[in-house]
Structure formats: C-alpha cells, structure tokens
C-alpha cells in the first residue's frame, strides 16, 4: 500500500515545482509536442497548442495567453482554474485527490468531467485532449436580487 502514497507525494512535489514556475514552461518544437485544444464555454475552439509531458493545463494556458485564472497559482486552494475535459481524456487520468475534490465542490458550472487545470498533467496518451473553459460570468440579471422598496 506504499506506492499510491508515494505516488501522491511525488505528484504533489512535481506540481509544487510547477506552481513556482507558472508561465515558465518551455514550448516543444512544433509538431513534436502533445496536442491540447482549448475551447470556450460555447464550445468554440480558442486555440490548439502543443506542450510537453508533465506540463499542467494551467501553466500551458498561461504560456499561450488563454484566459484561465489561477488565483492560488496551482496550490489547490481555489477553483478558478476549473476546466471541463472531454470524457475520454478524463477517464485516462488518475482520480482527483481529496484536496482537489474539496475545491471542485465550489467550482461554478461543475460537470462529471471537471478538473482543476493545475492538477492535470499531460501524458502522451492525452494527446488531442480538449479542455473547455466554463462560463466565466454568472448571469446576474437573472440571479440578481430585486431591490426592496420603502
């Protein structure tokens, strides 16, 4: 039973290193990297980019000026980098840890294939993955409270 714990520590430490270096990832030579498609909340393609094995989706988004927030900078303390993955890619990933699930609880527009971008690291088998950004603005004109009159 040691290996999952060790694996989790390893994953975390890699991720912590990545957190300090957001925006500092290197781009692979064109045509050699793992392809990742970013789509907006309406399903329109924003950009297809290439990245290296081990890069996380939040860092990749920042490297390519995709509008994905990362308020806590990859330390699993917020849900601002919430992305929706295509079901096939989602199934290829290890299950989210408790801390990621705790944050996903608070994500807006949560789906069955939601993950935190900072916790999704690319592997070769994820080539062609789609990450959809959830709708960033709440429709406040529907949700908004009616004023009370005096």
């Amino acid at each position, binding site marked *: 039973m040691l290996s999952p714990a060790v694996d989790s520590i390893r994953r975390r430490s890699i991720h912590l290193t990545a957190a300090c270096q957001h925006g500092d990832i290197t781009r692979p030579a064109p045509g050699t990297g793992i392809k990742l498609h970013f789509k907006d909340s309406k399903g329109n393609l924003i950009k297809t980019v290439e990245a290296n094995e081990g890069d996380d989706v939040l860092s990749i988004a920042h490297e390519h000026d995709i509008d994905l927030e990362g308020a806590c900078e990859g330390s699993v303390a917020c849900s601002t980098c919430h992305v929706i993955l295509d079901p096939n890619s989602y199934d290829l990933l290890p299950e989210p840890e408790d801390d990621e699930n705790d944050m996903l609880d608070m994500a807006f527009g949560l789906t069955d294939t939601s993950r935190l971008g900072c916790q999704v690291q690319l592997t070769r088998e994820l080539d062609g993955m789609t990450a959809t950004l959830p709708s*960033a603005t709440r429709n406040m004109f529907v949700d*908004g409270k009616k004023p*009370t009159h005096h």
Partner: protein
Amino acid sequence: MPPIKLAIIGAGPSSFYVASRLLASLPPSSPHHSALRIHMYDRLWAPHGLVRYGVAPDHPEVKNCTHKFDDAASDLRLQFFGNVNIITTPPIAPVPGSVMLPLKSLISHYTHLLLSSGCTLPTLHPALPPSDDCVSALSLVHWYTQHPSVVHKPPPPLEKYKHVSIIGQGNVSLDVARMLLTPPSTLEKYDVPESVLEVLRRSSIKHVSILGRRGPLQAAFTTKELREMMNLEDSSMVPIDHTHLAIPEGTKLTRQQSRTMQLLQKGSKNKPGLDFQDLVVGLLRSPTGLAPPLSSLASPSLPYTLSLAHNELSPEMRAIPTGETSTLRTSMVVTALGHQAEPTIPWYDPSLRHVRAVGSRVVNETGHTMKNVYASGWAAMGARGVLVSTMIDAYGVADTMLADSFPEQFYKEGDALRSATDGGSLGDLSEVMAKEADLDSVPEEVLDAKATGNVTDYNDWRMIDQEEVRRGEKLGKERERMNWEDAKAFLGRMGGSL
C-alpha cells in the same frame, strides 16, 4: 464616448478584480485605452481587504491572488489611496488614523463610482450581547491579523480559558477553531504576528464546541475547512450523535453535502480520548442566554453557563425548538454568525444589510438606477462565497460598466435591464456623478493628507510588503506584520510629516 474616471471605495479582492478586468479589457491596442483612470480608496492603510485581514494564516496559498493585484497596480491608470475613509455620516466603527473624506467631495472628481467596501460588521446574536468573554469571531480575526481597528485593544486572555463555545457553523467559525486548536509550533511559520503567537502559547484551551442551530446539511462551511478540522494534529472530534447525521428520506444531496456527511461520519483522524484537546460539533442547538459568571464555583476556569434550546428541522428546513434544553459550562463565547455592511455607506439597504444593487448597478431608495454607480463583492451581495465567487461577480460588474460606457464595443448579451427598454437605454436614471472630470484630479483633502504622510500609495505598500517578508525571514516565517505606527516609522513618516 466620454472616458471612465472611476473611484472605487474599498481595495479588497473584489475591487482589484474589477480594476484588473477593466484594465485588461482596455489594452494599449484599444481606442479607449487612455480613457480610463481608476482611483482606489481604502479606509485602511494597507490594500487587499480580507486577503490581508481575513484569510486564515494557515491558508497562505489563498493569498497568492495578490500577485494579480500587484500586476493591476503596476498599470499607471490605477492609483491606490490608503487610509482614506469615504463617509456620508460619521462611521459606527471608525478606524484610528484614517482620513475622513465626505462622499460629496469625492464624487465631484469622478464620472463613475464603485462601492466595494465589503461587509465589515459582525452580525450579533440577540441572546448573546458582547462582553469581555463573549466576542465576535471578527474581533478574533482582527486580533490575529492585527487589523488597524484593534491595535490598542488588549488580546484575548486565552490563558484563563478552558472551554470555548463558538456559535455558528461557517468557515469563519472553523478558522477560529483551527487557530485556537493548532499547536503554535505549527502556526509560527505562517503570517501570525509574534504578539499573537505569544498569547496562543499561553492558551489553556482544552475544549472547543462549535454550535449550529440546524443540521449538517445546512452548515455553511466548505469541505476543505471541515477536513482540516478533522485532521488537526493535537485534537479529536467527539463523534456526532447518529440521529443528527440521519438524512431525511427523499433528500437528494448535492456533491458537497454528501462529501460533508462522509467526513462527519468518518470522524476525526485522532480518535477521542488520550491527551487530545477535544472538539464538539453540536448540531440543532440555539443559544438562549449566557448566565453571568459565578465566582464561587469549584471550577473557576468555567465560570459561564450557556443555555441551549434543542431544535428539529421543519419540512422547510427551518430550526424549530423541540422544547428540550440543556446547558454548557464554558469560559468564552465566540459568535460567528456572518457579517453585514456598515449602515453608513451610501445606498445601504437596511433590509438587505448591504448596498441596494440590481445586476451590478446601484439603485436608490425610490427604485431608480443610479447612473454610473456600481457595487461589487460583499458590499453588493452580502457576506457569502469564497474568492472564486467574488472574482466571477467582479468580472460581471466590470463587463457591465464597460457595456454601459462603450456599448459599441462591449454590448453585453442577456442584460435584462437594457433589453426591457426601447433602444437598450437604461431608462430613468438618477445622476449623481460628475458629467466630466479631469482624468488626473484628486480631491484636495486627499492631497493635503498625502502631503502630511497620512495617505499611502501602492509603492508605499510594496515597500512595506517586502519589509514584512524580510522581517519574517529573519524569524523563519512567512512575514512579520507591521501596524500603521511601524509602517509610518519604516516609511520615514514619524511625527506626521514626510
């Protein structure tokens, strides 16, 4: 279109997210790039609101959002004025050292106004009037973050307390419980002031009860905070009565609710007994009174008797008293029942206990939308939600402001207020803001106070920020905070002049 010269009241996360979105939406390539100025005013000398004076010290990652705020502040179109309290009438809880600026003087310099001053007053419990040993959670948060309002108040005498009763089951209540139960040796690497650590090291607290009037499904805390409480290194939770964890038939739990229930059922990592401090989560209990201290008791560390009414849930999930009661011996009561806005802020609605706003726009008492006056964050929504909800709200407010000011470029779909009127106009608007304003003018009162060294700008803050981190490094911790006196001395502003 006329430019946006915006005054923001408050410099917390909501203000910075609105500012950041406005600045980013009008980049150098935009025809309106230079048609934007933002002046951010805060009654405190330091920016970042609850990120500095609210976020629990053992959650340092949450504070990473300030890097984005620093980026926004490096845009020359944004200026910060700390220690300026914008008032309509004298505030209920004035901050010592803050410069008072009447709203009237402010708005003559600005075409746009954003109210983003948060919810700064604690909601009290009618049966628990504040006293030396019955305090709001906010006063403890202010103590451990060294908020300017408590600088000259004595710290809580934790050395004489054995049992603390916390009323309310939200994240603030769990933050306070964690601060009281986490070993100081664990806290000392974080942003906890040395004076606070000293008091925590002297603490005699052995028991903490967290009481809520309803059941686990209605509790406001989030899973992360509950999990942290279950994992406290020197504490254990007394298992919760199974009848209180029963899920009513036919109830469909949300994802968060089912994960909360699993955690509560599983219990704490440390099992009760041994030498642990213990923690009780009391469900379906409402305080009805706190008897005055009895000095003749055998146990002087537990002088108070807290009376509790037992509740059950109605089909509408309201707490209904069953008629049963019990009492709890305790040394201190902390009320953590939420927060509300200062009633003296403009366009405050007493029934909402925050600013009256519809779809980001401020509405006056006769129901008229105020032209170019907006509200965001807790000032507009009430005190709820975590950083992500504040950010999403703020972006929506910025988008609305842009759509109102530059409709040809930023038309916003789904704006019911616009589509309800012919031609997308906003209808009958009340005007208070200046029609035109010198883009770089600042109220004279502010300039005068700045000349005497009593108003801070963002560069002052950056220097203090760096110095706090430097002082912290020497002590092996994240940072060592300064209060305003320290900050003034460091900035070379002793004696009230530069």
